[in-house]
């Protein structure tokens, strides 16, 4: 199973700044292993962040997003103590959901 994400959500003025690190190989499918065999593509395809049940960011990614991806954005309407939840799904159907409390 995939490792947990590292999510930070903190007030920045009247906005919530969200910073997310995800543990993922983000393998492009274009590389070869030591024996010359192609390494199959394995990458996160969709990411969504929600707050109080509302989507605050949705993303589609290709294999050119860097390994162990980092993502940061800001949204309005959040308060300290509330939760931000993030879900990713990769091309093999693996998924992971984690949440953080706004500080």
């Amino acid at each position: 199973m995939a490792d947990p994400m590292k999510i930070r959500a903190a007030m920045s003025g009247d906005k919530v700044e969200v910073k997310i690190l995800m543990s993922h190989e983000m393998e492009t499918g274009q590389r070869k292993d030591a024996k010359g065999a192609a390494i199959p593509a394995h990458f996160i395809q969709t990411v969504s962040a929600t707050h109080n049940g509302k989507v605050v960011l949705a993303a589609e990614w290709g294999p050119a997003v860097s390994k162990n991806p980092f993502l940061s954005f800001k949204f309005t309407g959040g308060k300290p103590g509330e939760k931000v939840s993030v879900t990713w799904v990769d091309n093999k159907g693996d998924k992971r959901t984690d949440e953080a409390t706004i500080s």
Partner: protein
Amino acid sequence: MNSRRRQVLQGTGGMAVMGLAVAAGLFKPGSAWAQGAAWNKAAFDTRNMNDTVKALGGAGATESKDIVINSPDIAENGAVVPFTISSKLPKTQQIALLVEKNPNMLVANFSIPDGTEAGVTTRAKMGQTSNVVALVKADGKFYYTTKEVKVTLGGCGG
């Protein structure tokens, strides 16, 4: 070097077929081919900006000074190149990052709901020095800006 080039060329052939298939209406971008509910395979297979815009449902894109790409001009390592893209265009709905010389151009496409700031920070792989494109959909229309980012090779040590 040669084998890589051959791979890329092969890739292009496949992509052209895919493009034709999409153009012919055989596959609707973002539906039948998507593995996840909302992964637009056709868009991630494109090799130039016009095709990307089309795969995202637009007709063409206009250059705009209201989009800003914030990144270093030189990346020490192409495996991780940091980008912040922000848009001052009213009603910004989507922000996409494209790298012209990558095997496939589209890196990421972000949907910006109401209440979310029109700016995202993420990191992309770059195979070599290239123009980078920030493509923004605002009020139903597409706009873009470009910037060159140089990629150096790392030395040994560190």
